[in-house]
């Protein structure tokens, strides 16, 4: 009985001391949102569509992100300008379904779709979580600064003729007999 009383008292005093001693320890909690946490560049947060170094839309509406998406929350429609450049007529992500898996970014052959460190995506209304191209498209290149798909692809677009892409020879003159 005595031992029991002694142990209880000791335990309580020790606990009180421990709690008291924490008054001088530096706090772990940050004052969010006044203090913003550091997010790593490869954090998989809000999805954006980026532009190439020339400032043109990078997305070519190839549909690979949409098909890679495990929750099927990306829908888009391809269209084409007069000079043959493909781009999305609309590009829609339903963030209320998105699971931030990053498969879309992995599938994207043009580095257009990228996940960013921005995690502040909550909305009061679910409908507001549906983002269209106007909302998704940013003005910069995102994480990948140099890549421009159309400079590599063989398709002719405005400002880039046949044979002007990287590592391309000038177009063949079919009527020439030279080797």
């Amino acid at each position, binding site marked *: 009985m005595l031992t029991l009383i002694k142990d209880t008292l000791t335990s309580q005093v020790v606990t009180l001391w421990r709690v008291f001693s924490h008054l001088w320890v530096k706090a772990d909690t940050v004052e969010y949102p006044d203090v913003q946490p550091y997010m790593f560049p490869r954090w998989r947060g809000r999805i954006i569509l980026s532009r190439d170094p020339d400032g043109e839309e990078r997305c070519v509406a190839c549909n690979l992100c949409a098909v890679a998406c495990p929750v*099927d929350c*990306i*829908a*888009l429609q391809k269209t084409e300008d007069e000079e043959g450049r493909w781009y999305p007529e609309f590009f829609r992500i339903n963030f209320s379904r998105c699971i931030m898996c990053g498969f879309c970014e992995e599938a994207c052959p043009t580095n257009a779709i990228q996940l960013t460190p921005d995690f502040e995506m909550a909305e009061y209304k679910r409908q507001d979580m549906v983002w269209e191209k106007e909302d998704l498209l940013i003005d910069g290149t995102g994480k990948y600064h140099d890549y421009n*798909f159309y400079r590599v692809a063989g*398709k002719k677009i405005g400002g880039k003729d046949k044979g002007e892409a990287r590592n391309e020879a000038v177009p*063949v003159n079919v009527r020439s007999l030279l080797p």
Partner: protein
Amino acid sequence: MAKIVIDGVEYEANPDNNLLQECLSQGLDLPYFCWHPSMGSVGACRQCAVKQYRDADDKEGTLVMACMTPAADGAIISIEDEGAKSFRSEVIESLMTSHPHDCPVCEEGGECHLQDMTLMSGHNYRRYDKKKRTHRNQYLGPFVNHEMNRCITCYRCVRFYGDYAGGTDLSAQASHHHVYFGRHEEGVLESEFSGNLVEVCPTGVFTDKAFSENYSRKWDLQTAPSVCVGCSVGCNTSPGERYGSLRRTVNRYNSEVNGYFLCDRGRFGFDFVNNSDRLLEPVQRVDNTGELLADDQVKAFIKEFKADGTIGIGSPRASNESNFALRAMVGEENFYAGYSDVEHESMQVLLGLASDTAFHSPSVREIEMADAVLILGEDVTNVAPRIALALRQSVRNKAKDLADESRIPQWQDSAVRELAQHDLSPLSIISSAVSRLDDVASDKVIESLSVVAAMGHQIANKISASAPKADCSAAHDQIIEKVVEQLKAAKRPLIIAGNSNGSEVIRAAANIARALYNFKDNSVIDLCLLVPEVNSVGMSLMTNAKNPLGAALKKLHDGTAKRVIVLENDLYRRASRAKVDAALTAATKVLVLDQLPTSTTANADVVLPATAFSEHEATYINYEGRAQLSFQVHQCKKQAKPSWRWLCDAEHVDDLVERCCNEVPGLVRLREVLPGENPFIAGMKVPRQSHRYSGRTAMTANVNVHEPKQGEDKESVMSFSMEGMPAQKDASVHAASWAPKWNSNQSISKFQDEVNGELKQGHPGCLLIERKDSSGSYFKPVSDSIEPSENQLRLVFSYQIFGSDELSARSKPIQARMTDAYIGLSPKDAQKRDLRQGDVATISPLGSPVVICIRRGIKAGTALLHCGDGNISPADFSGLIEVEKSATQTTSRGIGNLIVSDFHEEEINS
């Protein structure tokens, strides 16, 4: 049967085939490019290399090209051999050295044979770091896009376009790695089968231009097995839908009908479904303005029509079910034919012949087997294009015979062609104008229609003296003699005619076939009789012979009938304007069901919107009496319903089919086309969407973030979702061909019993018309008694692949190839009237404006009338017409879209 060993496993093989065919037939994966199941082997791409061993002791083996090696008994080969594998991966690496980095912006991506083969061959990383060769593209018309950079020079395109389809304006140019496939100059591809290049090209050099404008990846399309409604051949198609609009049509393999190829009308004519003019709401006409009708108002209306004094006019372009529902509603005696009286009469002759035991109506595949063909008075390329393509194959039977004699296997494509050179099986054409098959015709006679028929009768008489003689001038005796000999000598002769221009040619063709039947000791003769529309045969089987359209119009005009229901039909194309106007004005109530506004809907009291072919499940009967089932591809979100749903209370399309079987004597076996129970294994339906269908939770999220319930399909064995029976397990309802590792249409070999064979569990359709009448006799020749005066010309109706079909003429890509209504004249007749190419003229009796088209290959004294999609009704003209230069010379489309090279050869293009 031969036994061959592949990678240690013994297989039964057909020694007439090559090793590649056998490997694919056995379900093995072996990459290839230049080989095509219907075009044979040329051994150009070196991609299908395998190791072949002399005997069991041979451990070294030699590399052979599977497509160039016969599957001889005892052959031992290995696909998996390391040497063969590395050879294949190096071959594809070199084929890919100049292939651009285009896949994301290429319409072929995701269904590309080159992608599949690259992956299958194990070529992953590009090592070649030199410059890629590039090419300039060409404009090839409204159907096909050209992107030459992507070419891997397999030569399939020119082999299809030139060798198979007989096109002359696509060729291989330049040499070595500069080889270029294109036209000698930019311009519209002339062949009626150019769209097949999209499917024949293993990569994205030729892509579907119309599809590209509303592009979607293959995996995103909702598809279902469908039947083309462009003509009476009934080719099987896979239309694909995305975001509520129909995006494209591709070929769906049917061993008996279309095989691997479609015509351009079939491929590009679907777009009328998306037409912005579509009728989508029930409308009542009140003082020339439309007033929307509520459900109960429509019901009240239909009830009113159920009273006595209502007649129904069917439609050769509507399904059996819709025609039947109308017939059941108004009663058989009040159900009238929906085509012109001339067509009705010839259709009766045709139906009589269809049950005659002396004849056989050949399927497209059987047409390819004919070794002597006679075409009587029909322009096959424009009436039933797919059959023209089959006829081009039939003339090659001579080459195949020669190859057999020289013991060259049939699949050795270029060897067989070299051997035969220009030696073709006989194909004789007797008609009133030039046709697009003339280049393969052994003989061509251009005569007026009455002479064509008389020549037919004369041929019959020469084959068998029991056939009646006809008055026929001696001018063509030599050719008649020649044709007679050819038909007599043939093992499988084929006579083709059609009902574009009355029944006399059909009678003549039947007499020839009967004469052959007698001559060949009562062996059944192939007699192919063409009709213009998808369900001409189906509707005619339901229509009483005493109920032609003329009788219906008369009844309405004289007040015997008060109300009329017109089913998916523009009467102004079927009967003369005056008669239709009179009938519709006299009728107290006119109810029209249709998909698109026509002159008839404009005169209706109530118009009910009907769904188009891709929006409902239906059966159609083709020219040979083959019933085929076409599934619903997508739902019509507006108020359009299948016509039968407006007209009767049936719950289910199957119920109507069942009633059809019981009530229409000609359609007793129709139920056989309905899929059996097996698609419902464990309650699972067949999905219309692929297992990779994307965007489900975002497609409609802009409207409402809460996803709608998946569309329900209570009618068919298919569902509007991705879930259900995978096609690999049961392909009896097979829309989009896909197999693991095979994303392109080449995956079809995984679903065939053997290469070019029937589909596993598939359904080639069901031949409905039983032949049990053996009492048939010869027809008596009827000679044309009308003699034209000096200014008059004999009228012949001419069909155009682009424009003659009512619905496909509302499709945008087709419109880009259409002409105005024109009249074809011989140079002599044109000169006489001071008319020049492209002038505008008027034709009597109505003074309708037409464009002048002068061709050397038109019989002088004959005028060829193509009615176009304007206001000219064929029923307004008969027999003789006069042509006069018009005072106004404005055209909208002109005749610029007629095939240029035809004119070029004739050197009369002004």
